[in-house]
């Protein structure tokens, strides 16, 4: 079992010296060069705009029913068809996008922030602090989620902020463990030792030198968190938290469509396609971001 060869190339000099503005400018430049990432970003932007402004241009509302019509396939009147209560699927999909994109982004940002900061501190400080922090993570993993959500609702009432809290509270744990693992490895590297010997503060070392080097897994796990969060929202709305009917979300639309996939396939297909499109775009954008922000690649 050979140990990995120690890096023989000396510490990249500009690590502390380079002004941050140029780092961001470089990154932005590289991101724009990445066609897939640009396409992903564009699709997301278009989807977001459609969800926010689209409903104003449509003549149906998300709750307007036509019981005699019932579920119909796409037609000139209803471009994406109607659901079993005769509601226009397109409008419901756009309204659902507001909820799902909102929840997906906000809850993920909550989870991301908590997870990254928590994991970074635990990994960097190490020792007893790390042990206590990680045991707290173990405890949080084990607590029964369903019970937690019901309690949250009973004692604090139902509102959208709670939704983020509930989702953020479960989704940050794995992120914290991943970041901690990365930081623990990175902090033994020469360039961090060097930064420390230069007398840089802990906060600066963590946020300027360690985290940028752990960006890859962070971004990848973030792009994995977003779909999980969007689908979790459907379960929460089942428990009574989250969106209430007749409002829809992508999660509830997909869940609803999945139950009727043989009879009314369009009820699954359209929400499924939009959901997938969003995830693919996020993924390309994420990959692009990772590359763009890669401190080492930039030195090539």
């Amino acid at each position, binding site marked *: 079992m*050979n*140990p*990995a*060869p*120690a*890096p*023989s*190339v000396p510490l990249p000099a500009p690590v502390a010296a380079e002004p941050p503005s140029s780092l961001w400018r470089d990154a932005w430049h590289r991101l724009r060069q990445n066609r897939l990432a640009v396409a992903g970003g564009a699709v997301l932007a278009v989807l977001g705009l459609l969800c926010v402004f689209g409903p104003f241009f449509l003549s149906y509302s998300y709750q307007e029913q036509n019981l005699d019509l019932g579920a119909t396939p796409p037609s000139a009147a209803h471009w994406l068809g109607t659901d079993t209560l005769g509601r226009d699927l397109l409008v419901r999909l756009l309204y659902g996008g507001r909820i799902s994109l909102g929840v997906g982004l906000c809850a993920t940002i909550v989870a991301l922030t908590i997870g990254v900061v928590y994991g970074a501190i635990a990994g960097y400080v190490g020792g007893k602090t*790390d*042990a206590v922090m*990680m*045991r707290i993570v*173990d*405890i949080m*993993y*084990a*607590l*029964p989620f*369903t*019970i*937690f959500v*019901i*309690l949250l609702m*009973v004692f604090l009432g139902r509102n959208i902020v709670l939704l983020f809290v509930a989702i953020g509270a479960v989704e940050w*744990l*794995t992120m914290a*463990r*991943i970041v*901690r*693992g*990365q930081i*623990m*490895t990175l902090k*033994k590297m020469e360039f961090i030792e060097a930064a420390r010997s230069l007398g840089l503060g802990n906060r600066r070392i963590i946020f300027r030198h360690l985290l940028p*080097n*752990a960006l*890859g*897994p962070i*971004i*990848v*796990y973030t792009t*994995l968190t977003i*779909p999980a969060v969007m*689908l979790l929202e459907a379960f929460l709305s089942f428990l009574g938290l989250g969106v209430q009917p007749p409002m829809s979300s992508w999660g509830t639309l*997909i*869940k609803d469509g*999945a139950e009727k*996939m*043989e009879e009314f396939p369009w009820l*699954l297909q359209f929400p*499924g396609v939009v*959901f*997938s499109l969003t*995830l*693919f775009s996020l*993924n390309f954008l994420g990959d692009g971001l*990772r590359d763009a922000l*890669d401190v*080492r*690649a930039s030195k090539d």
Partner: protein
Amino acid sequence: MLRFIARRLLQVIPVLFVIITATFFMVRFVPGGPFTAEKAVPPEILRNLEAHYGLDQPLWRQYLNYLGRVVRGDLGPSFKYSNRSVNEIIADKLPVSLELGATALAVALVLGLGLGVLAAVRRNRWPDYLASSVGMLGICVPTFVMGPLLVLFFAIRLGWLNASGWYTLPDRILPALTLGFVYAAYIMRLTRGGMLEVLNQDYIRTARAKGASEVRIVLRHALRGGLLPVVAFLGPGIAGILTGSFVIETIFQIPGLGREFVNSAFNRDYTLVLGTVILYAGLIIGLNLVVDVVQVWLNPKLKFE
């Protein structure tokens, strides 16, 4: 290392204690109880029932009684399944979940690691796109869509397999695939991400410069660092996969433990909630310990702290 493990094992006791205590009181503060039913039970009968299960005693005494029993390894009677004990239910169902989970895990690891490494090494070329697409598919298609689709095709269209159930050996195929595929997608994405991170590291370039073969670089050097995120994910991931999945067990009607996690909460089966939580907690703690050991092994620069 042994000292490290021993110290960690000692920490299990306070951690479990906190989990049990928190869960015990959480389930009690949730509205509705084990005997809340569609039709009202007359108050006198409800009192009989509560007396039978000791629910008429002060909460702190019930808590102490419960702790006393847990220490002796007795998780108590189930409220819902009134002639079964929680120990018995777990003993019945855990093996099923383990069997399904282990199979799915094998699928996930083979598929996820293989595609992930392939994608990272052949980055931005067609093997990467292909592997990444498979990975994205696993993320975009939720299990509650994938499962029924597989059933419709293999069981109903082709008639090769049963639709649901856990009766014959072939009944294991579709659930294992469905469950394995989701985890494969996660592992694939994380492996690719982790590998890319490492392949850019200076020591890999050094190795390349020294003329080491690509295969050797990947297997010897890159995998070690590249697997870190995957390993961190696998701790809770394996605990989750082995204790069963609510969705998969519902779609395929598998008598595993996954449904009990959710249903026991819905049934307010206090003891069963606690029993499953204790089991899951034990697995999480144990697996996270294993993960920490593996992380040190993957990176010899780390020491056991």
